[in-house]
């Protein structure tokens, strides 16, 4: 049923969260939010983005384009307003300022104004365009991280998100040929991706599903099986090979092995031994690891050492079965490969939280992430509502910058959004618009001259 799908993000209210809210007493309140929407939220930029060059003067501009985009607001009192549409940046701005939504979601562009969908009952109101979107949530990684679980994230597990960004971003650009990709911190424990090229926005649901499946390596309904990843066939697809050699392997061996202490206890290494379908190998390793506790070199990380032993045994020539070589890769994939919420990507009508919203539980702003420098992104250093308000109130900074936003730490994020994403996007939308307009013009001239000839 096409309908609102509440992000899992906001449905889980557990103890962790309570703690977190208490830990940041000045994190989030509607008074602060009013100031944020009043002085900091980038309305112009959002409008420019969602207009995709249709806000210009060119005759090919579709003036109704922005007005057919669905926005939805979640209000303070849990009231949920769907199918809100706006015809101009000032309408958008006034409505947000008036309602002060704790969350803004963005839906598709419909064939007609979805706010008036009831008057189109006959011809129908259906999504016509929608960015290709991806939603990656840290809580889906709970079986492979030992530092925290559920809603929490820390710098030890955040590299899992870095991996996801690198793998998906590279494939979207190199394999699928997309260029205008925006990565956004979801405000708490994950990332969102917006692919905004014209041909991405016009993808059918079937193609969205195909792209999502291209990224799928996890088995479905695997709760009770040990192997989470199944890399079938005698070889890997070039996309998986590239992801493995360029990203996954390094992150696993250089970062996650020690930071997550993947082999440190029997309970943990047993999970990995479960993925090896050969008794003799697993019992040999288990034997080594059980006595090896005392003899191992104190300087050497035990996780790295055990991984090397495992690899050596599985990849040495004496392993008769080819299948076992694949095990090493399967283990790495299981512990590192991006876990996408497939349903979000597959359907045009799925709503996704707008960038620059403030997460109501953490008070953190959903800022863009630079995929080229995603290793440097620190979710714990993202501006919060209260720090922004402080910065606004700081008289000293007031003199230095000529607008409110530039004297806060949000300024940098908005400038990045503008220069790295928005400007190239609008430029290419304009070019695309003009060239398709000219092609049509040419066509109709040709048609006219044909008609003239026919008349003679």
């Amino acid at each position, binding site marked *: 049923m096409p309908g609102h799908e509440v992000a899992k993000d906001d449905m889980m209210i557990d103890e962790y969260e309570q703690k977190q809210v208490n830990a940041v007493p000045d994190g989030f309140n509607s008074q602060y939010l009013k100031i944020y929407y009043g002085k900091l939220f980038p309305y112009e930029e959002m409008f420019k983005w969602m207009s995709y060059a249709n806000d210009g003067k060119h005759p090919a501009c579709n003036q109704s384009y922005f007005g057919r985009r669905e926005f939805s607001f979640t209000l303070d009192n849990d009231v949920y307003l769907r199918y809100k549409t706006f015809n101009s940046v000032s309408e958008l701005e006034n409505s947000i300022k008036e309602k002060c939504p704790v969350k803004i979601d963005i839906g598709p562009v419909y064939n007609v104004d979805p706010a008036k969908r009831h008057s189109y009952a006959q011809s129908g109101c259906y999504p016509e365009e929608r960015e290709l979107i991806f939603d990656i949530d840290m809580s889906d990684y709970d079986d492979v991280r030992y530092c925290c679980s559920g809603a929490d994230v820390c710098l030890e597990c955040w590299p899992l998100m870095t991996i996801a960004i690198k793998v998906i971003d590279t494939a979207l650009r*190199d394999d699928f040929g997309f260029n205008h990709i925006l990565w956004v911190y979801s405000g708490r424990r994950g990332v969102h991706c917006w692919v905004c090229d014209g041909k991405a926005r016009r993808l059918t649901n079937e*193609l969205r*599903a*195909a792209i999502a*499946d291209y990224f799928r390596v996890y088995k479905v309904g695997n709760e009770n099986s040990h192997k989470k990843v199944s890399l079938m066939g005698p070889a890997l697809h070039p*996309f998986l*090979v590239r992801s493995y050699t360029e990203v996954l392997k390094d992150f696993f061996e250089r970062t996650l092995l020690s930071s997550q202490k993947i082999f440190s206890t029997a309970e943990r290494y047993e999970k990995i031994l479960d993925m090896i379908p050969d008794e003799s190998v697993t019992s040999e390793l288990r034997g080594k690891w059980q006595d090896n506790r005392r003899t191992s070199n104190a300087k050497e990380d035990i996780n790295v050492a055990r991984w090397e032993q495992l690899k050596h045994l599985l990849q040495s020539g004496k392993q008769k079965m080819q299948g076992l070589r694949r095990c090493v890769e399967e283990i790495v994939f299981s512990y590192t490969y991006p876990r996408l919420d497939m349903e979000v990507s597959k359907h045009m009508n799925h709503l996704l939280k707008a960038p620059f919203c403030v997460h109501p539980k953490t008070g953190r702003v959903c800022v863009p992430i630079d995929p080229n420098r995603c290793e440097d992104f620190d979710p714990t250093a993202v501006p919060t509502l209260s720090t922004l308000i402080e910065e606004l109130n700081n008289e000293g900074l007031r003199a230095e910058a000529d607008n409110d936003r530039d004297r806060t730490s949000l300024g940098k994020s908005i400038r990045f959004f503008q220069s790295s994403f928005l400007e190239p996007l609008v430029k290419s939308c304009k070019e695309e618009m003009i060239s398709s307009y000219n092609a049509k013009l040419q066509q109709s001239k040709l048609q006219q001259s044909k008609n003239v000839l026919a008349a003679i």
Partner: protein
Amino acid sequence: MLAVRSRKPAGYDDVPTLPLYRSAPALDVRLEEFELFAIDRLRVLKGISDGLSRGKKHEEMEKLVTDLWKTNMRHPQASEDINKDIISHFVLRLVYCRTEELRKWFLSMETALFRHRFRNERPEAQRSLMAEFGLAYKKVDISELESVMDKLTQVARSTSQSLPTADAIFYKVPFAEVPELVGSRRVFISKGHAYIAMSQVVSLVATHFRSHLSKALMLTNRKWTSTIVEQEKNRLTPIVEALSTSYLGPDYSQPKEFAEISLREIDDIAKSSFPMCMRHLFEKLREEHHLKHGGRMQLGLFLKGVGLKLDDALAFWKAEFSRKVGAERFDKEYAYSIRHNYGREGKRTDYTPYSCQKIISSTPGVGDHHGCPYRHFSEENLTAALSRMGVNSRALGDVMSKVRNKHYQLACTLTFEAVHGTSCEAGINHPNQYFSDSQMIMKSKNHSTANDTQMQIESS
């Protein structure tokens, strides 16, 4: 009466026998053929659908489809095969154009059928079909092929296909044209282009077939609602509407084993085991001695599904209707459609009881009593109807909250649970399922009370 351009010039065996259904044929079709051909094709599509949902392997499917086609689509006169093929396809377009769900199903099954038939054409015919679609892709030239050869080899190895040779033919197409090859990682893609091997061309052609058919179905739908449905309301419309009910899930067209109800018990059973939508129709019929077309279809097919025999059905409807319109008019105007529902009149076929999905999406007008009460009743009427069914006030609140959230089938499920005092894990998806689940519970209750009595007698 059939005026078909011959598609097959004599002596040319390579010309495909597989039509692309690009435009509706200028054919006059006999009404019987209209329906019979469609039913035969529907058997093929349903067979494919069943095969796929049982997870049959590729080779099993190939054999299945070949058999299905042979059994159902051969015309007694071989020369008419192609007409039957084309006519049946276009009739089913009418049938399956009308909702998103129907279109989706038809699109998948027709595409699966097309793929099968395309694969079984000879290469020359395949090429001419590609040309007919205007798929004029250039082969990847030697130097480019060399530069990506290791990737192509990798893909071939990863999918256990035969490895490409240096002179292999590959086409480079936008990835959007081969979604299934992309989704299963069976192609190498680079900068938005997929490199497809000659053996994968079927996917490319199937994509075009599918998108063409998808657009055509939207157009047909528009035409259907704007003109056909009204123009043909006495001729094609009822046939088309009946045909479209014959798919999806267990169709309840054959009564369950214990189900056979007689006219004597029908009032009691209606009270105890009919879902509200049917109970309402039943009561209205008793009250007003009349139901409009939508109501007659919804209730009539349901009664057939619960096991009311044709003769009893005729008697039942006649008893009511004749009090309003007279026996003679009943025989003349209404009896036909009841026999039709049972497949006795004209077409030798079964019509299937409506599912919840269908009932919920129906659009009853003024004077109509069919549809889904949870969806179509006012809150006031619904509350009153629920109380009449014996739903207590606590359960009533739960039901109404489901209704407000538009979860009509859940509302019906809760009603079922309240009325029967047991849980209904599977949920209600079909009025006939409501009925048979209810009967099952009633039977087991009766059974256990009977046993209890027995025990008392023994112990006393």
